[in-house]
C-alpha cells in the first residue's frame, strides 16, 4: 500500500552562503539577518527570512526569490572584508516539501539522519545525505523540506516518489 505522503517541488528561493565568525558577520550584515541561531544545525526566522547554522563558521540565509536583489544590496556581497564570504547561491538548490501522515516512513528510506524530535527538533536544519547524495533537510509543518543540487532534482523527485510506493 502506498504511503500517504505528498511531494511538492518548490519554487526557487533567494539563498546566500555566509562564512566567517558570527560576530563579524553580524556587524557586517546588520539588520538584514535574523538573529544568529544558538545551536548547531538549527535555524532562526524573522519576517520571511531564515538563517540556518549549517557548519562551523557557516550559515545559509534563505528568503523568497523576490527579495534576492534587495538582500544582495543589503549584504554588499561584492565588498565583504577578507575574513568573510557572502555568496549568492539561489540557483544551486531545488527544494522539495515532503509532508503527510506517513512522512516518517518515506524519510526513513531517504536518509539515515536521525529525525526523532529529540535529535532533530522543530527548528532543525542540517546538511546530510538523502538517496546517497548531499542534501539539506529542515523541518516544516507536517513534514520536512529537502534541498538537493538542482542538477539532481528530477532524479531525486523520482526517488522520493518511488519511496512512497
Amino acid at each position, binding site marked *: 500500500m502506498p504511503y500517504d505522503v505528498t511531494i511538492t517541488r518548490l519554487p526557487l528561493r533567494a539563498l546566500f552562503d555566509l562564512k566567517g565568525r558570527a560576530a563579524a558577520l553580524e556587524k557586517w550584515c546588520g539588520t538584514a539577518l535574523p538573529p544568529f541561531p544558538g545551536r548547531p*544545525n538549527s535555524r532562526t526566522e524573522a519576517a520571511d527570512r531564515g538563517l540556518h547554522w549549517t557548519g*562551523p563558521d*557557516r550559515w545559509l540565509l534563505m528568503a523568497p526569490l523576490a527579495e534576492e536583489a534587495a538582500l544582495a544590496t543589503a549584504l554588499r556581497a561584492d565588498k565583504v572584508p577578507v575574513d568573510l564570504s557572502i555568496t549568492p547561491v539561489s540557483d544551486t538548490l531545488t527544494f522539495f516539501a515532503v509532508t503527510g501522515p506517513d512522512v516518517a516512513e518515506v524519510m526513513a528510506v531517504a536518509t539515515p539522519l*536521525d529525525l526523532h524530535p529529540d535529535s532533530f527538533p522543530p527548528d532543525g536544519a542540517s546538511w*546530510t545525505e538523502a538517496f*546517497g547524495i548531499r542534501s539539506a533537510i529542515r523541518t516544516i509543518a507536517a513534514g520536512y523540506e529537502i534541498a538537493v543540487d538542482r542538477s539532481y532534482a528530477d532524479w531525486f523527485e523520482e526517488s522520493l516518489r518511488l519511496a512512497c510506493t
Partner: protein
Amino acid sequence: MLLIDCPFCGPRNETEFTYGGPALAPRPADPGAVSDADWVDWVTVPPNPMGPVEERWWHSRGCGAWLTIRRHTVTHEITEVRLGR
C-alpha cells in the same frame, strides 16, 4: 558501518564522511636534516598497526568540517573525535 560523533553535528553515518588519510606526525622542520630513510618513511609509509590509529575525515555531506578521529583498526571503536588536527 562507522558512526562518527561529529563535534558539530552529533553522531552521523560514515557515508556522510570522506576519508582523508592518516593523521601523520608533524612534518620535520628541516627535511634536509633527516635521513633519507626517515624522510621516505614520513612521506610514504602510513601507520598501520593492529590497534589505535589517528585519521583525518572530512564531513563532506554534513557540516564540511575536517575531523581527526582515533579509531581501533581491529574493533573499529572510535575513542576520540576532534575538530581540525
